[in-house]
């Protein structure tokens, strides 16, 4: 009985995990009559920043301004504007900051290029390091060779001793 209960709870839990948090409709939000348009509007809302909460999308936020922006997004989509046109409409009033993903333009070029700008000197440093490591070692002088031989011999003898002791 207990095991059955546990299984039921686990099943329910995994069901929640699999289906995820269903996208809730905010209170006082009126969805568009056309479910297809509503979906487009919802997807777009995830890309629009709630300006007063800064790191939430208007889809996630309960702020008053987010509510207004959701209404405006729905209006635009309902009037057959494309998501791109709707974004441009918002950017004209709030700037690129209203988009959670900054667009590539002259102002944000450095931002987008920075990973590559940073990784190039890194590759160069790695390359130089590997170059110096693989450069051929110098030949031993005869004195060094002799020294090496005696060390190897002594080492082999101590190893033999240890072998015999075992």
């Amino acid at each position: 009985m207990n095991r059955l209960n546990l299984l039921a709870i686990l099943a329910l839990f995994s069901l929640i995990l699999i289906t995820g948090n269903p996208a809730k409709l905010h209170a006082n939000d009126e969805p568009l009559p056309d479910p297809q348009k509503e979906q487009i509007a919802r997807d777009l809302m995830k890309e629009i920043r709630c300006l007063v909460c800064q790191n939430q999308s208007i889809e996630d936020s309960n702020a008053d301004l987010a509510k207004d922006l959701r209404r405006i997004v729905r209006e635009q989509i309902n009037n057959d504007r494309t998501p791109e046109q709707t974004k441009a409409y918002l950017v004209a009033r709030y700037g690129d900051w209203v988009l959670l993903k900054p667009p590539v333009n002259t102002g944000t070029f450095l931002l987008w290029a920075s990973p590559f700008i940073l990784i190039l000197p890194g590759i160069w440093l790695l390359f130089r390091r590997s170059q110096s490591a693989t450069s051929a070692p110098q030949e031993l002088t005869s004195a060094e060779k002799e020294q090496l031989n005696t060390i190897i011999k002594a080492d082999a003898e101590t190893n033999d001793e240890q072998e015999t002791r075992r």
Partner: protein
Amino acid sequence: MQRFFPLLIVIFLVILFAYMLRDGRNPSEIKNVHVGEAIPQFSLTDISNTGEISDQSIRNEKTPILVNFFASWCVPCRAEHDNLMALANTHNVRILGIAYKDQPEDSRAFLEELGNPFYKYGGDIDGSVGFEWGVTGVPETFLIDSNGRVRYHHYGPIVGDALHTKILPQLEDLSQ
């Protein structure tokens, strides 16, 4: 040379951070895209019998003005109100008030209680004018030149030394 590389990075970061920490920089400030541009199209609900207030009426002024978004429910607006009164009365600056998402009777009561610094004010009852101006909250203040261009945007209340270090120097720049 390679030995000093980490040191160079540290020195660079120290300079960068010191620069970013410098006086008067507010990282939470939201920049307004209209600065340097013509004022957006809008028209206000008449809540004070001052006649039509719109982008056209501002362009007809032919003098620099301040545009102040306020609301009776906005606490920081109370904080900056004394400075608005000083601007209007002591510095003879014309301030246009826009009551953002506020009921007309509440806006009127607010100005009756604290004094009216505006030569004209109107209502933006649903916040759509604020949207056109890219306002994210109240208070926000814009300086408009005599050609109807936005010259300066002040995010948040005009408190502390903001009146003397920001607003008045900007006004002086314009009158020169």
